[in-house]
């Protein structure tokens, strides 16, 4: 009798095949499986710039991705995807074009490319798995790294706050933008479904636990994200047309300590809980302003 790997999804060739090189506890693994679950029999084109996600693919001639995948230059996910989506549309193909990118390729080097594709409202689903660090190169700060976090290039802790990527994307008035929590499966699945059934540019931001970079325990990844959502440092919400904001999971008063104390990266001078709490309150005040100033829900 032969042993067969348990298929993770209904179709024979999953988006992310077994035997990939993801670290234990990496948010990418769960994220890709859940996205695949919603895709069902629909097969996407994948565009992956330089990031852990392309390391995941493994070395030639194998690939951990079960769909046609382009490894893009670092800043080019959204431009390659524009070319692919253009040709797919010209040929009446109905394969979604998905960019799967890290925070470096989204917040930093690829921001201009991303902004332009969003402004043109290209028919692309752009997903950033944000581990708040240049993970692939061993853990350097990015503009997605939160204040106070120690990285190899911020040895005393980062002195600047995390860039507000959702506000930037909303300012482009893209049809759909949402944050994804791997601790909130139903909400995650629903928003992937919404994104896949929306035309035009869609942006999903997943806070992606990274035990290697966060100096956390792999088996705590999901719980860490639950704490991030609960304490409000990672708000779970969606934005329609850059205007209508909806909070999907309210913060529940979880102490910020439950999140930061389980990660040794939060050891910088600025990683002071009261300071972080004030920043979280700021962030939520801004979100609530957006909810109240948006067009009434029709």
């Amino acid at each position, binding site marked *: 009798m032969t042993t067969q790997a348990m298929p993770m999804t209904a179709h024979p060739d999953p988006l992310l095949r077994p035997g990939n090189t993801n670290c234990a506890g990496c948010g990418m693994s769960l994220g890709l499986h859940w996205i695949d679950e919603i895709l069902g029999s629909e097969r996407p084109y994948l565009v992956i710039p330089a990031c852990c996600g392309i390391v995941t693919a493994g070395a030639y001639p194998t690939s951990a991705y079960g769909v046609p995948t*382009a490894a893009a230059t670092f800043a080019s996910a959204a431009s390659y995807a524009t070319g692919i989506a*253009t040709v797919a549309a010209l040929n009446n193909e109905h394969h979604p074009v998905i960019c799967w990118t890290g925070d470096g390729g989204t917040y930093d080097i690829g921001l201009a490319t991303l902004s332009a594709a969003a402004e043109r409202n290209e028919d692309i689903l752009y997903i950033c798995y944000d581990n708040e660090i240049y993970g692939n190169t061993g853990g350097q700060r990015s503009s997605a790294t939160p204040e106070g976090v120690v990285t190899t290039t911020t040895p005393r802790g980062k002195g600047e706050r995390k860039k507000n990527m959702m506000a930037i994307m909303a300012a482009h008035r893209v049809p759909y933008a949402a944050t994804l929590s791997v601790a909130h499966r139903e909400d995650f699945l629903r928003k992937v479904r919404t994104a896949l059934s929306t035309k035009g540019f869609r942006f999903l931001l997943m806070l992606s636990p990274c035990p290697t970079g966060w100096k956390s325990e792999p088996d705590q990844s999901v719980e860490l994200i639950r704490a991030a959502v609960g304490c409000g440092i990672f708000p779970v919400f969606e934005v329609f047309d850059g205007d209508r904001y909806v909070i999907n999971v309210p913060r529940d008063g979880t102490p910020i300590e439950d999140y930061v104390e389980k990660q040794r990266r939060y050891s910088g001078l600025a990683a002071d809980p009261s300071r972080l709490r004030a920043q979280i309150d700021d962030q939520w005040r801004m979100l609530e302003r957006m909810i109240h100033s948006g067009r009434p829900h029709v």
Partner: protein
Amino acid sequence: MGRALVTGNHAAAWTLARAGEANRIARGCAGGAYPITPQTEIIEHLRNFAFTKGRIVPVESEHSAMGVCIGASLAGARAFTASSANGLSYMTENVFAAGYYRLPIIMVAVNRALGPPWNIWVDQGDSLALRDAAWMQFYTESHQDLIDTILLAFRVAEDPRILLPAMIATDGFISSHTTMVADLPDQEQIDAFLPPLNVPHRLRFDHPATIGGLTWPRETEHLRHAIQRAMELVPTVYAEAQDEFERVFRRRPHGAMEPYHTDDAEIVLVACNTMARTARRVVDLRRAQGQRVGMVQAKMFRPFAGQALRNAIGPAKRIAVLDRNHSPGAGGVFWQEAVAALRSRPDVLVQDYIVGLCGGDVTPDVLERIVDDLSARADAVEPIWQEVTA
């Protein structure tokens, strides 16, 4: 269309658009458009062309213009764009990617000096800086040559034996913004000349692969060597394309190294782009005076058509290479290539002349002085800067 008075930019755009349109029976065409002087009119025209099955995307940078071309080509479409100078530099990372991906993307490079200082005039240094990028490079001397070479480049680039991108260079302003009479080919002719494109390694669902992912050193070296082998085949495939071109268009396009009166020449000028046309005139002037001067239009720069150059110079023992470019610390780039190609001919004196750098005029007078200098020269010396050291 037939014969018309057009600018170089119009000629380039006309040809790119119709070459793209010709692929409407396959997966269509696409490209990215970003303005930079002096190529801007090309992308304006492309944006205004009503493609049956095509889209030119107005992107935010040259880097993304090439990114869109790469995505489109990976999806199997005919892809093209145009740029100049700092635009080409900014695009460079994706220029290399396109070559290493083996994508038959076509780009018109309207030559302009790289800044700083800010100088918008012609200099081949911008495209020559990309000589190691696994792209074919062609340099064109007239609007007709530009049109013909763009079409030939599509045909060669898309040949399954080649599958490499191609850059077609033309002089900023001197060519891009001046009018010449040229034969503008009809859509039907271009349809007949360019078969529907098949990118064999395009992204496909029946064989999902990761293109451009990690390869180990040994496999990577094999991939690089395959590019070298394809480059070595280019002169043969180009010559076949010339024959096919002649059959369809009833005209013979220029060869890789196009000689002019070199059969009995004692002195040969090697020149590219509009300098080559000026050189033709100087050859006529000197021949009228009884001096045996010839010239070679150096058209195929990558791969460097060394064998064709050795054949083209004929019996001449004195060669002047005209370089409207400069590699600091080395000299003219065409000269370096010519010297390497003529290493089997120690009897030939090869002298480099840096002329018309950053837009300086290269008039017949300038070239006549070079002919006189070369005639009197006992040995080759370091590159001579026409405006500085001559």
